[in-house]
Structure formats: structure tokens, C-alpha cells
């Protein structure tokens, strides 16, 4: 077992995750219970070019064969109309994103109105030397948290990660690493939310190299 996985697993134990979930088989089991299966359209929404680049790299690493569209968020009627069209299309699709707070406030609201399923909303605060990830997740996206934590460890990131699962389903995960780096969290997040296909075991280090500072909101929406 490598050092990074040991560090993650220690954190998982600290967060109250039972021993039955530890080990390489744990994430494989998690993949078997992915939020959804089958072919879906995928839409990536980001609020800046930097966020798009790193987040998309992570998505691509998780799902190299998947085709996806990208959309830049803002507060314009055109963006709202495009997003609504996706939310109400009736075609199974997954919308994942990394946006600013203003966009997120609107996007989550529109998802609710359209009866879309919101499995994850994350608040992320990243500064040099400090990274906090506060996640509001459903039971079905628990594996996303595990993937995210694992990738953060692989990237050598320092972070605090706190999960909230208001509907219950076990103790929420609390993970932390005292390292000082902040690279790669955006790609790690994209990777985690895209829910890696079978046989994928992490992001290539190049994809994970980009730094992204500031405050962001991530989400995973299924239509």
C-alpha cells in the first residue's frame, strides 16, 4: 500500500468510515454503485477559462472516451436559456460544473425547478497554503468524495475536506492533509465528479499540475 493511499485511509478512519470500505476494492465497489450508468450526455459548466481548463482535464482523465459540451456561466438571459434547455431536455444527461458563487446560486435553483437531481454541491476556498472544501452530498455521490480525496492526496495537495450529508446515511467524511501544495484540486474535482470509468486509476500528473485560486462552487446534476 503506498504512502498516499495510507494517508487517505487514515483520514477516512478519522472520519468514521468503517474498515470494510478500506483498500483498493473500496473504490471499485463504489464504482459499481455509481450515481447513474449507461450513456449520458455530459455538460461541463465553468465560470472562467482557467477553471474550465483544469476541471475539464480531470473529467477527460476520468472518462477519456466520453463526449461532452462545455458552457461558460454568467448571469445573462442567454446562459439561463441554454442551461434551462439542458435541464428540461428530457434526455438523460449529467451536468457538472465549477463556477463562481453568483452563477452557482442561480444554477442550483434552476436545477431544483426543473426537477433535476442534485447529488453534490461543493464550496471551495483555495489560497496559497490553504484549501477548504465543504461538500453537501447525497448518499449516491459518496464515491465522488472518496475519489476527490484520493486524487488530492496523489497531487500532493494540502487541504481540509468536510462532507455534509443532511439526509444521513453514515457519518460524514472529514479528511485533511497538512501538505503545502495547492495544485491539481480543480482537475481532481473534475475527475471525481465525472466518476471514473472502469480501469481508470487516477489523473496523469500533467493534468493535475494547474493551480486555481479563489472561491468556487462545484456541482453534479443529473437530468
Amino acid at each position, binding site marked *: 500500500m503506498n504512502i498516499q493511499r495510507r494517508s487517505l485511509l487514515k483520514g477516512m478512519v478519522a472520519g468514521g468510515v468503517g474498515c470494510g470500505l478500506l483498500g483498493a476494492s473500496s473504490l471499485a465497489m463504489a464504482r459499481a454503485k455509481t450515481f447513474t450508468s449507461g450513456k449520458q450526455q455530459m455538460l461541463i459548466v465553468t465560470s472562467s477559462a482557467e477553471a474550465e481548463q483544469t476541471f475539464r482535464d480531470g473529467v477527460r482523465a476520468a472518462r477519456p472516451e466520453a463526449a461532452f459540451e462545455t458552457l461558460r456561466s454568467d*448571469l445573462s438571459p442567454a446562459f439561463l436559456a441554454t442551461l434551462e434547455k439542458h435541464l428540461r431536455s428530457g434526455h438523460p444527461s449529467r451536468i457538472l460544473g465549477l463556477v463562481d458563487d453568483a452563477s452557482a446560486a442561480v444554477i442550483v435553483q434552476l436545477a431544483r425547478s426543473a426537477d433535476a437531481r*442534485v*447529488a*453534490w454541491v461543493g464550496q471551495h*476556498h483555495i489560497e496559497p497554503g490553504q484549501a*477548504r472544501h465543504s461538500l453537501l452530498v*447525497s448518499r449516491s*455521490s459518496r464515491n465522488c468524495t472518496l475519489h476527490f480525496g484520493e486524487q488530492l492526496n496523489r497531487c500532493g495537495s494540502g487541504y481540509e475536506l468536510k462532507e455534509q450529508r*443532511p439526509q*444521513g446515511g453514515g457519518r460524514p467524511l472529514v479528511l485533511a492533509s497538512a501538505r503545502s501544495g495547492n495544485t491539481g484540486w480543480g482537475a481532481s474535482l473534475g475527475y471525481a465528479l465525472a466518476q471514473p470509468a472502469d480501469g481508470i486509476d487516477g489523473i496523469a500528473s500533467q493534468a493535475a499540475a494547474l493551480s486555481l485560486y479563489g472561491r468556487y462552487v462545484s456541482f453534479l446534476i443529473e437530468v
Partner: protein
Amino acid sequence: MSEAKKSVLPKGVAQGEFDAAVSKLTALLGKDNVLLQDEQLVSYTKIMMPGDEAQHAPSAAVTATTVEQVQGVVDICNKYKIPIWTISTGRNFGYGTAAPGQRGQIILDLKKMNKILHIDAELGTALVEPGVTYQQLYDYLEENNIPLMLSFCAPSAIAGPVGNTMDRGVGYTPYGEHFLMQCGMEVVLANGDVYRTGMGGVQGDNSWQVFKWGYGPTLDGMFTQANYGICTKMGFWLMPKPPVIKPFEIRFDEDSDIGEIVEFMRPLRISQVIPNAVVIAGILWEAATAGVRRSDYTKEPGVTSDAILKQIQKDKDLGAWNVYACLYGTQEQVDVNWNIITGALKQLGKGRIITAEEAGDTQPFQYRAKLMSGIPNLQEFGLYNWIGGGGSMWFAPVSQARGSECDKQKKLATQILAKYGFDYVGEFIVGWRDMHHVIDVLYDRTNADERARADACFNELLDEFEKEGYAVYRVNTEFQDRVAQSYGPVKRRLEHTLKRALDPNNILAPGKSGIDLDKFNDW
């Protein structure tokens, strides 16, 4: 069939009873309208208040499309003693969002009751269901060439007239005091009766949306910011779209100008020379809605320095205070009032007018002009990017429209916010004789210390303002009990007396505005 073993249940309701209620709700509404799974409920649970999401987690959410279904939901919840938290669009953001006031309540989401029932173009009236949004209404008026204009709050496009009016929200046009423009409503009571206010109970009546008062006690107000019934229809007045709409701004350079600004505006407002609810936006509200982020200027935690505020003012060509107002009417009417305003401003000797032509498509002028012209837009959400982090609580005391009041409130608010490390991000909305002073307490919810400070700050704002004789007109669900205390024990006893009579099982939104039979004991 419900989820096996829910971890979130209504207070005092066992799993078996909850399952039985859910079965009945499913039979009534259809399984697609009874939401139990985590990922169906996360979006209802996302909050901007400092507490934990777990305290506001619903046990379920149900959607209804007819009055009969709403009656059915009320009947089932009465039988099983399950509290319901009703939302229309659920977009009151800094006042609590869509989350229920208490853990375990079932959300009754009326988003699918979204019919525009009637618009009368000649009388300027509308009758709508609770799920109708302002954007939907705007599109309807445009598509049908109906020459009426809307008034709405800043979340405009995605918010709705019923929810905003029932919470006594305000807008920025001459019809900006929304509850004043409400005329007739239909309410499902806790006993299942359907009550229509005003003229609505008269068979064959056609003045339900034109005459507010009806006969005997007029009860519309008691259903606003309250939990005595579920509004299923609401009538309100729409302003005829005038031939000329002239938005303008007056910029004032010094923070200390606020008193003089209000003394200047009040007579113009009372005489209706300026007929709309005027906004006086402080520098940070103005800057944030123009797309400025705090991180553009500093990474230092805590209060943004005066030097930086001045720099932002200079860089972005903004005022320390930025007054937005509008004239409406024929060209002759607008010209007369414009001359009065410019003459008065010349006498004041300070302030710089910016017209729509001069502002062009710059922000925030453009979004303000749209709000005053009844055109929905979401630009004001830029406030949430000033700090980021997802925390927002609107602290909104009211006062007389006097300069001395503004000055006092602004100084007190700034001092308290600074004590806890938060910026003053505020504006005054000048009504006819009153002012709503809306301050957005913005903070980072990923930071546990900041959440604790935001909570303490909001409490201190309430306490210190109350000592000066000020109370807020509206508040988020974590503070509704505290604010109810500000209004005194007589009001609370009366409200609970009414609650006991109308909803003895305490199932309609217990806790709303501090009204909760389970908690009240000051009879």
C-alpha cells in the same frame, strides 16, 4: 413506497407513521411528485445561513398542481401531525432560501402551480398561481403585447410575485411596495377550507382584483409572513407601461453625504415627483454588482479598508453613494419632473447626474435601469462574488425617511460589522415615507470561525439596533424567533391565539415568524 429507514423524520413522527403518510401522499399526488431520495432533496437543503444544513433538512418534498391536491396534503399532514413548509419559487436567498425552517418538515413546493390565471390589460390587474415567476409573467406580457409593466425584487427573473408579496418584499418601480399592490388572495386553511379575501367570497363578483377591502375585517395581511394558510392564488395590480421611462443616477462622492441625500429625496418622493422606490446604494453594493471582487484589491482578511474603498470608487467611477431613480409618463410629464429634480439638485450643490444615454450599457446602471423599468435580470447576484463562500444574510431594519436616521443606522451597522471582520455592503430603499436599509452580511461558509462570527454579528446587529428602536421587517429562518421578540409579547400572544384557532395541530410552517405552538408558552 418510502425510502427504507429515513434518517430525517418530522419531529415526533415515527418511521411507520411517516411511511403511511408518504403512501397516502403518493396516492394523492403521484410518485413523481413525492421526493424522498437524497439527490432530490439536496437542492432544497442548500442554505446561506451560518447554521448546519442538517438543521434544515426536509424529510421529503411534495409538489402539488391543484387546490384540491393542496387540500389533500393538508388533510394528510393533519392526520399524521406532520408539519409542512410551503414555498412558491423558494428564491428568497438571504432570507432563508428554499430550506424548511425546522429539520424534518415536509416541503410543499408549489412550483408546478404555475398558471397565469387572468390579466386584465384595461384595469391593470393580474391573478396568478404561486409557481408563476416574474420571467414567465414578463414573457406573457411581451408575447401578448399587453402594455403593462412589472415590479419585482432583484432576483427578478427566477423569483415570483406570490412568494415575494407574501413575504412583503419590495421592488424598484412606482408599484414597488408589493403588498400595497396586492388585491385579493385565495388561501387553503389548515382545516381544508378555501378562503378568498376581499370580494372573493361573493358569488359572481368581478371586483376581486380591483377592490382590496371587501366587507368586515380585511384579513389579507395576516396571511403574509405568517403560517395561517397556504396561498394558492394571488391578485395584484400592474402599472400601465408609460410612453417614456427615464431612469437616472445621482452619484455622491462622500460617505458622509447620506443624510443630505435622504433629506433631498424625501420631499420628491412624498410629492411623487419621483414616483418609484429609490435605491441609495453604498460603494461596495455598487462595486460588487458591477463585477468587482474583493480579491481584485486585497487578499487581507477582515474589513476592507477605507483607502481601498476610495480606490475602487476612483477606478470604477462610482459614488460613495449611488442613487437610482426613475421618471415615468408622457414626455411632457417627465420633462416637468426632470426640471424639478435638476433644479433641486442644483440648489443642493452636490451630486452628479448620470442619464441613461451617458451610462450606456455599463453596469450597474444597466441592471438598475432594467429593475426600474420592469425588465427582469440577475445582475445583482454579483454580490455573491464580492467575497464568495456562499454565506449571505440580509439584515433589513426600517426607519423613517430622514437623513439623521440613515446616518445613525449606517454608523452603527458599520461598527458592528467591522467588529466581526465583515464589510458594510448595504443600500437604502426609499419608500414613500419609510426606508428599508438592506445590509447583506456576506461571509465564507467554508470557514467555521467565519460562520460563528457571522452568527454572532447578526445577533448583535439585532440587539443593538433594537436598543435604538429599530427592528427588521423580514429575516431568515434562523433568526425568526429572535426577531419576533423585538415586536413585543402582546403581538406574540395574539399571533399564537390565532394560530391555535386556525391550526391547532400546528402543521402549517411552525416557526415561521416565530409562531410555533410547540414552543410558545407566554399565554
